[in-house]
């Protein structure tokens, strides 16, 4: 349809189909990118109005601690006594320019919180996804291979258990067993104080401790950082691993009954090879599309995991501000996470569209 999209379908290697449906990858990406705007807009507006239902944030945070006059002054100073609509428009404008507000309790810009603590959440999410892939995908294939037998039932119950156990309970249990009783792993935090001091001595540390620890060149520091990450990553990763296991199992079973797998089977290809070579790859495509939704689950889980393990990331800070009833900070962090979720969903959809032309239809 449009000539501007010409290079994109060529890269995807499915030109005839894309041309027939009239647009192909480029058009799909454009529409998908434009859809970010209403998504972020809706979530940010929703959060704004919900947070204002209870009244202004200053009374919520400082009410009872300041006199009525002081409160009124602070409210006026921050502009919370103006009409709600004007506040809303101003807020939208601020968000649009990347200003998510300033916290009440410690007067920090929310974007600074993101810069300081975002790396920790990123690191945790990365390790958790790693655990989820390493545990979920092979076990899902195994479950499909032994389907409708005891091994399958056991694996499925395991998957449900992964989902059914609240991350904070799993966290408490692992802490109890591996830290308190066995003493194998550190009980909380991202690194011990000594390791942290070594990493702070680096010029411009990244905040991603694994990278910083490698840069110090000290194996003890790296070991310390990795040991601290084991339990949080495992706990958060297993939550997603259960979802992956179920998904891979269902999809592999689905592809195992397709014609091309049947034809392989009739040629005498062994079932093991059918699962690992024939049915496995197409079954991975739905996983990529589902990862988008998993990001949401992962972020929600990260708030709980970080709180349990005192892993000082965005989620930990969010729960700290919740305790302090600093709703500007809460609103800012939640709005920020909305942007992150919308962006990652977009990226995941782009990857899915590049890999599987059917997604774009």
């Amino acid at each position: 349809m449009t000539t501007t999209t010409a290079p994109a379908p060529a890269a995807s290697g499915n030109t005839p189909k894309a041309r027939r449906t009239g647009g192909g990858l480029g058009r799909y990406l454009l529409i998908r990118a434009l859809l970010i705007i209403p998504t972020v807009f809706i979530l940010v507006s929703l959060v704004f109005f919900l947070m204002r239902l209870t009244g202004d944030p200053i009374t919520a945070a400082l009410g009872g601690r300041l006199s009525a006059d002081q409160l009124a002054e602070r409210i006026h100073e921050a502009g919370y006594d103006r009409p709600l609509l004007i506040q809303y428009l101003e807020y939208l404008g601020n968000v649009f320019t990347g200003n998510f507000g300033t916290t009440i309790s410690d007067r920090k810009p929310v974007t600074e919180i993101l810069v300081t603590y975002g790396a920790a959440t990123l690191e945790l999410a990365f390790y958790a996804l790693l655990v989820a892939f390493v545990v979920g995908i092979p076990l899902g294939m195994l479950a499909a291979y032994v389907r409708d037998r005891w091994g399958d039932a056991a694996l499925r119950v395991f998957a449900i258990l992964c989902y059914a156990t609240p991350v904070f309970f799993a966290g408490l249990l692992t802490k109890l067993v591996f830290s308190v009783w066995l003493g194998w792993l550190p009980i909380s935090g991202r690194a011990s104080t000594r390791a942290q001091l070594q990493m702070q001595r680096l010029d411009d540390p990244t905040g991603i401790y694994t990278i910083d620890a490698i840069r110090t060149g000290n194996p003890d520091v790296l070991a310390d950082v990795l040991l601290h990450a084991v339990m949080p990553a495992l706990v958060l990763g297993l939550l997603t691993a259960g979802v992956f296991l179920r998904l891979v199992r269902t999809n592999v079973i689905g592809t195992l009954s397709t014609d091309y797998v049947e034809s392989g089977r009739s040629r005498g290809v062994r079932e093991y090879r059918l699962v690992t070579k024939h049915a496995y790859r197409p079954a991975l495509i739905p996983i990529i599309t589902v990862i988008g939704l998993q990001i949401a689950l992962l972020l929600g889980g990260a708030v709980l995991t970080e709180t349990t393990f005192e892993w000082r990331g965005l989620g930990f800070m969010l729960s700290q501000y919740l305790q302090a009833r600093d709703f500007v900070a809460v609103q800012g962090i939640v709005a920020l996470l909305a942007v992150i979720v919308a962006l990652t969903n977009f990226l995941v959809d782009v990857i899915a569209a590049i890999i599987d032309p059917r997604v774009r239809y």
Partner: protein
Amino acid sequence: MTVATVPNRSRWARLPVVHQLRQSVGLQRGMLVAGLIITAIFLLTAAFAPWVAPYGFSQLRDADGLFGSAQPPSAQHLLGTTVGGFDVLSRTIWGAQTAFLVIVFALVFSMFIGILLGLVSGYFGGWLDRVLVVVCDAIYAFPSLLLAIVLSIAISGGQSGLWAGITAAAGSITVVFIPQYFRVIRAETVRIKSEAYVESAKVLGASTGRIMFRHIFRNATRTLPLILTLNASEAILTLAGLGFLGFGIEPTQAAEWGYDLNKSIADVSSGVWWTAVPPGIAIVFVVLGITLVGESLNDLADPRLRGRRRAAKGAGLVAETSVVPGGTLTAGPGGVDGLESGETFGDQGIEVKS
């Protein structure tokens, strides 16, 4: 195996869960039955909590005096006491009641609103449909726990008595779940409204309301039991998550598992296990039970995943009578390579499409 043919299936046999129970075989039936039993235990505990629990959920003393703080399990307190001096076993049992109330409220509200919106949106279409779809997609993609936190701040300001706490939790879970019902019912409505019987109802002059609720809704409820069970388990997890983050219900108002777990973080570091384990196990147990039911319903609804009793029998027959068990085909016209590249067998009249 038990029910080979049922000529006149009674109303009872067509009820959602009963029907699937009859349909299931082998392991699948085992998982479904296990899930149903666990769910039944949960429901009974919730209903009879006042009689089952040895003490009240906010009871600090009995005739012998105060319970004492963080007492290890003993004959008097089978699972010990919390730091606050409550009996752990009693609070765990009472917690079932709170969880049940929240699930019921959340599911009733989200189902009602979600189904209504889905029907209206799918039936009328237009700009309302488009707006609702975008809004629901936005909410659906967002971490439900974060949304629940914001909503619970909005509903109760974060401070909760029993009913305020239950409405806050149920209300926040409701909003999170509405999109799920909305999506399913809307998709079904769009599909069904072009069916011939809807057309003929229109021609006969049936009112819009009648068409929507009688003709479309009655036929769009296929997947509801499944979403219902999955949402029930998610509701428990969200409630526990809220409680864990400090949006729980005050311990003097009701027992709530997430709140108790939050209070036990500090205990775990000092090796006190009995305050953390019972409420956690309770959550896992209930969610496991409900999810088992939901998963089984899901599998039974999907022909690819349904237990393969008949298929297995048939496969056995085929294997016995088949002339080509395994390897023989390799010596076929094109050999294995011929099959793999998807060549056509023109001379035999069999066309193999790639």
